[in-house]
């Protein structure tokens, strides 16, 4: 009967809860960021331990992200308001597996083609991709007095990616890099390729990258005899610019448009929306009061 089925469901969910760690019950229900700051805060409240041991990141990648942090936030950590974009999360992944596929051709300025595997376990379902970039770093800052033209050929190696609707299986694009001053890295926008994969919550992305840069435009004497590939590190990092839609993340557009009155908490707002006639009634009273 209905009652016995409900009783069975209640018993099952109670059993589930008793098995889960108490602190994990405090986790945000909307599948929010489990590996980030919040999970650590809950763990400290629960058992006093801090973050789990971590793999150490590549120093150049860390340097890039520190520079990004300084551009986006003040020294006290307050997000700068002069930013026009909507992403509140930037994730940098270094390839967890990489190897050279074919040797390059120095005369033609072609870098060796490389095979890369990125593990995107940290990306949560509530994080929506806005932009994605392959980040090449130089092993020292070089300066190119004139523009260098590079052609990049990207192929997604996932066999099942053919089944994903609208996924560009391979992706060739020409990028014009303007090297005018000291550079430590170059960025290539690969958003059209990554968008459907991240949207379908893929956790690992396997791709091969082939980069060819116009050698004759390299005016710099040192660049002539040591083409790009001796200064450009072959294995790029993957940057994802995301909009975290969970309640704990800061939504810039939200704070600009909706100033929340201190006396009105989100739940009260939800109560009103829960019974729309309540809202209509409130509206009606207000307008009649105005009329009076």
């Amino acid at each position, binding site marked *: 009967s209905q009652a016995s089925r409900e009783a069975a469901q209640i018993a099952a969910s109670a059993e589930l809860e008793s098995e889960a760690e108490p602190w994990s019950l405090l986790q945000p229900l909307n599948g929010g960021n489990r590996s980030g700051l919040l999970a650590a805060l809950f763990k400290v409240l629960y058992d006093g331990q801090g*973050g789990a041991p971590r793999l150490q990141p590549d120093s150049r990648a860390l340097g890039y992200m520190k520079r990004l942090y300084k551009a986006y936030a003040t020294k006290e950590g307050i*997000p700068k308001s002069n930013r026009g974009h909507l992403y509140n999360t930037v994730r940098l992944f270094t390839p967890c597996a990489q190897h050279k596929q074919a040797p390059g051709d120095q005369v033609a300025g072609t870098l060796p083609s490389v095979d890369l595997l990125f593990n995107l376990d940290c990306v949560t379902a509530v994080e929506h991709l806005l932009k994605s970039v392959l980040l090449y770093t130089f092993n020292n800052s070089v300066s190119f007095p004139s523009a260098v033209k590079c052609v990049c050929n990207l192929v997604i190696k996932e066999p099942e990616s053919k089944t994903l609707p609208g996924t560009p299986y391979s992706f060739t694009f020409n990028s014009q890099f303007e090297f005018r001053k000291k550079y430590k890295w170059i960025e290539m926008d690969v958003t059209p390729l990554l968008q459907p994969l991240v949207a379908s919550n893929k956790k690992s992305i396997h791709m091969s990258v082939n980069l060819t840069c116009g050698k004759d435009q390299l005016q710099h004497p040192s660049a002539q005899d040591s083409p790009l590939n001796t200064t450009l590190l072959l294995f790029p990092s993957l940057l994802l610019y995301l909009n975290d839609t969970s309640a704990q993340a800061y*939504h810039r557009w939200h704070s600009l448009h909706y100033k929340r009155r201190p006396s009105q908490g989100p739940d009260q707002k939800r109560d009103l929306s829960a019974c729309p006639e309540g809202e209509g009634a409130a509206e009606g009273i207000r307008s009649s009061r105005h009329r009076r």
Partner: protein
Amino acid sequence: SQEAVSSELKKPLVPASLNLSEYFKQFLFPQNECELHDFRLSFSQLKWDNWIVAPQRYNPRYCKGDCPRAVGHRYGSPVHTMVQNIIHEKLDSSVPRPSCVPAKYSPLSVLTIESDGSITYKEYEDMIATKCTCR
């Protein structure tokens, strides 16, 4: 009787040592009124500096102090706050006085190293108290 009244009138209204403004202050505003306080911490105190790269120092601030009896617009408190005060004072002291709590927050940008070695920049909502209220 006249003697009692005259002796009452002779008593000093205000103890001579206490001047008038101080005397009235104890009625108008609590001594340690509800307000915002700083608390600067560095993530190394929590032993988190191995994975929280920035910011170096974090001041979440907090609200502390007594709420005046007639709060009104002063803290943006709803009328309910005075009702709760009256209940506490006149009807049932087991109902607590209104508390001094944060009313507004500002976000915080954090740069962290994830367990798989990837690096994350993320902006969290409601991480720094910026205004207090009595509720």
